[in-house]
């Protein structure tokens, strides 16, 4: 196992790449089913309206038309919300609008034709008459008696009122405080924008009753369960969901969406395949959005800068309906993160989940943790300024000490492991912190405004364990499956319930298996994304694939080796305890020539001519691994920016990231995820904003209006790692898919506000666009 160069930990080139760089990937829109029809959706142009009538007569006689269905035809169960908070109201979310529309883009009818062009023409002919109603967009305004209501039985549009922590203790902490910093913070709405738009193709076979759905999903089994059992009401085992190559998810491909169900329903109704691919405008209007919090946050300190308490009140905008994980993201993925990397004796957080006439919100890279981290890290910088301390010093003073792990926070989490000082020190050294501060001083004298921004963050990956999640309202388990099939030739196929949509599991999981078995990677293949071959799995979200999916694979590996050892011992006529497994073979301790290679044992397992008494033939194992706890990556990011106060333009000069994601299977892949993650968070800090007007029209509904980060706006990143293995899983990994996003938004925001300190600007809400910066500087100068 411990050979000179281990596969675990090596920067091995990805085996999925050859198909992608030659144009041979298979994404959902590339799937061409014989005889397929094409769907286009008629969508609401209103944010809130009563549907007076839908006339489909003209559309039904358009050239190439196959069928038109409305909410009256498509009678199914509502789209589910899979996390039930105490007292939560989950108004039904129909597949196609029933009586009312509640956000711009909500599907009203599905138009199906022989070609996508014909379907689009026919969709133009569907005549929907609406009676517009007043719209509510701002979640604080929507949360009022006088506000227009989306649902008759959801007063004040409040879906839930959730809290965590100790209110009385926190209030007391504030009474004892020497210094209190307080800030209203907007965490603006974001739109995910995976570059591959959502797509689905359903094919129903009337002869057998089997339904196959190809869909851009991060969790095909969950999609199958929810769609078959809860929405369509058909036997789950008669449905197969395939999520082939998927072009990025970032959370937006977790939920079950209207269109996926509609094409399934229509394919059953028509007995023909039905396919739909979103146009980018539809992605903007109907992919689950993220964030959108309005928060009042305050932190109490003693004179020396020690944190005494943290109090948070958040209005979370859920959109018009609860998306699949819409209730989880602003509650349990948010409040429990509020201790950050700091010792905070008392925390109280209250969250109102409010429905508005906007697209439903759900997970978006980081999902709750960026919202929490942005708030904590902004308050730390505000406090440093108030206390007249260096932001580094204030952070160090409050870090949870390395000898306090596992650490119980006042908001439910028990942190698995951590050592925050070294990551911070490494980042400071890389950026040359002291020198940077001097340069900043000098530059200011020359009328140049440099800013240095820190963020010392915590992340929580791989939600766990299932029993606790269940007690907290989860309608699903949080485990992962792994089927390891060893073939008679010693080749291994790994069927993982995790799903890769860019993460590179085909490579990393093969590394993990080949490393543990001591066999060449070429002997290992990884299969994912098809409920037809993979055992039930939970898919990929919350940076869980390595920690939970990887641990499931590891568990199967141990069982395979256990059986293999028994067979080898039998064949070698040795005691099991005398065998050593190394370099792909079992040998008798002290006499390395008496050995059986992995492949020989595999063959014997299938020949079954000479197995230990009572042993079943074959060599394959399925494990379901339920994690005992989350893992908690952490680190320090430092951004150095230059702000032009005359134009409000921000230039990122340097970006240093030191992350601790536990053990690393493939450093190249982890670095890549960190780069992408940082960029996503930079986008939130500086440019991205899913903006609605007061009428509920999405103002940023194209890539022209919604500013995604581009290559020429970014620097190359300087990355490094510290390694604090996680003790909660057998492979010591934590998770790396979202750390960058969680860390970078506050690092950039803090840097920009640090640059503007000479003007007395203390806070600007995200995104820090040139116009906002310019206005803040102008207002401060007055």
């Amino acid at each position: 196992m411990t050979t000179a160069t281990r596969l675990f930990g090596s920067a091995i080139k990805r085996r999925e790449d050859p198909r992608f760089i030659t144009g041979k990937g298979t994404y959902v829109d590339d799937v061409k089913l014989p005889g397929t029809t094409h769907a286009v959706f008629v969508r609401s142009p209103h944010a809130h309206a009563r549907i007076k009538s839908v006339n489909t007569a003209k559309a039904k006689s358009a050239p190439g038309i196959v069928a038109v269905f409305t909410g009256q035809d498509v009678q199914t169960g509502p789209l589910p919300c899979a996390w039930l908070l105490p007292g939560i109201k989950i108004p039904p979310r129909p597949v196609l609008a029933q009586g009312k529309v509640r956000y711009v883009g909500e599907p009203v009818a599905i138009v199906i034709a022989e070609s996508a062009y014909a379907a689009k023409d026919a969709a133009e002919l569907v005549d929907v008459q609406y009676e517009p109603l007043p719209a509510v967009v701002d979640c604080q305004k929507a949360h009022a008696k006088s506000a227009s209501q989306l649902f008759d039985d959801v007063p004040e549009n409040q879906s839930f009122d959730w809290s965590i922590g100790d209110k009385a203790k926190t209030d007391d902490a504030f009474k004892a405080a020497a210094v209190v910093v307080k800030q209203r913070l907007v965490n603006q709405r974001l739109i995910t924008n995976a570059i591959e738009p959502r797509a689905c193709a359903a094919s129903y076979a009337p002869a057998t009753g089997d339904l196959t759905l190809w869909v851009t999903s991060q969790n095909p089994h969950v999609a199958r369960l929810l769609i078959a059992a809860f929405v369509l009401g058909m036997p789950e085992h008669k449905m197969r969901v395939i999520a082939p190559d998927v072009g990025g998810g970032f959370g937006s491909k977790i939920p079950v969406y209207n269109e996926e169900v509609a094409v399934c329903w229509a394919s059953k109704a028509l007995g023909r395949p039905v396919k739909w691919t979103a146009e980018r405008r539809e992605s903007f209007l109907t992919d689950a959005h993220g964030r959108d919090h309005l928060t009042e946050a305050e932190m109490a300190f003693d004179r020396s800068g020690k944190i005494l308490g943290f109090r948070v009140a958040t209005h979370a905008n859920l959109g018009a309906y609860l998306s699949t994980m819409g209730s989880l993201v602003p509650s349990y993925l948010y409040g429990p993160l509020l201790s950050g990397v700091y010792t905070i004796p008392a925390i109280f957080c209250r969250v109102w989940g409010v429905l508005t006439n906007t697209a439903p919100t759900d997970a978006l890279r980081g999902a709750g943790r960026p919202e929490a981290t942005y708030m904590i890290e902004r308050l730390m910088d505000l406090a440093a300024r108030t206390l007249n301390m260096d932001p580094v010093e204030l952070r160090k003073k409050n870090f949870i000490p390395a000898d306090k792990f596992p650490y119980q926070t006042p908001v439910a989490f028990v942190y698995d492991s951590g050592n925050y000082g070294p990551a911070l020190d490494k980042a400071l050294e890389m950026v040359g912190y002291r020198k940077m501060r001097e340069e900043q001083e000098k530059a200011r004298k020359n009328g140049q405004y440099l800013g240095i921004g820190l963020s010392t963050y915590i992340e929580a990956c791989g939600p766990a364990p299932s029993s606790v999640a269940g007690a907290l309202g989860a309608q699903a388990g949080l485990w992962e499956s792994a089927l390891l099939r060893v073939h008679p030739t010693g080749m291994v196929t790994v069927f993982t319930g995790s799903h890769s949509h860019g993460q590179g599991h085909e490579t990393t999981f093969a590394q993990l298996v080949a490393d543990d078995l001591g066999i060449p990677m070429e002997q290992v293949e990884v299969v994912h994304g098809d409920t037809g071959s993979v055992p039930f799995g939970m898919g990929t979200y919350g940076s869980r694939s390595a920690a939970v999916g990887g641990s499931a694979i590891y568990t199967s590996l141990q069982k395979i080796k256990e059986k293999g050892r028994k067979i080898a011992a039998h064949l070698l006529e040795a005691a099991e305890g005398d065998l050593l497994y190394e370099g792909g073979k079992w040998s008798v301790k002290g006499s390395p020539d008496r050995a059986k290679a992995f492949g020989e044992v595999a063959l014997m397992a299938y020949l079954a001519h000479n197995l230990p008494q009572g042993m079943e033939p074959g060599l394959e194992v399925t494990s379901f691994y339920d994690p005992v706890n989350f893992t908690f990556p952490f680190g320090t990011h430092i951004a150095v920016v230059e702000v032009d106060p005359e134009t409000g333009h921000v230039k990122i000069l340097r970006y240093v990231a030191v992350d601790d994601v536990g053990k690393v299977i493939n450093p190249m892949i982890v670095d890549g995820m960190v780069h992408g993650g940082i960029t996503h968070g930079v986008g939130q800090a500086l440019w991205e904003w899913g903006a609605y007007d007061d009428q509920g029209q999405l103002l940023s509904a194209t890539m022209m209006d919604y500013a995604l980060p581009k290559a020429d706006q970014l620097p190359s990143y300087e990355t490094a790692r510290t390694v604090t293995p996680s003790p909660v899983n057998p492979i010591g990994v934590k998770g790396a898919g979202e750390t960058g996003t969680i860390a970078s938004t506050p690092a950039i925001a803090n840097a920009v506000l640090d640059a503007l300190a000479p003007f007395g600007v203390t806070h600007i809400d995200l995104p820090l666009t040139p116009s906002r910066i310019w206005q803040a500087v102008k207002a401060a100068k007055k």
Partner: protein
Amino acid sequence: MKRQIKVTINGVGYSHEVEPRLLLVHYIRDVVGLTGTHIGCDTSQCGACTILLNGMAIKCCTMLAVQADGAEILTIEGVAKDGHLHPIQEGFWEKHGLQCGYCTPGMILAAYQLLQRSPNPSEAEIRHNLEGNLCRCTGYHNIVKSIQYAAQKMAGR
């Protein structure tokens, strides 16, 4: 009202009757069946559909198939020659210039034109030239490295 068009894609001649409104990207993907060219935005902002048309990098979601009549087209499927990866493809593989792979064909073709015009581009030049190609996965960091790798390789360094 269909019109006959003739194009050469990756050295192979095609001739089809198409609707005048058919977008070139749909022609390539759905009529010819080369699905390596992707659609990310259908509004010429993301660059996923970048191809070379008569040697020029263009976004084929914003061109009609009939406008391409008589053109020579290079798509991602034609970039490798005789089973050998092009240095740009190699660069993306070596330097981990892709994750989900969806933007990748467009990135590779944008880089193809860049390196034709400027065989030894600076980092700033590379970043500037990728301004019309969006990637949500990589943060561009390794895409820049991939193109630098290709430039070196193509210069025989």
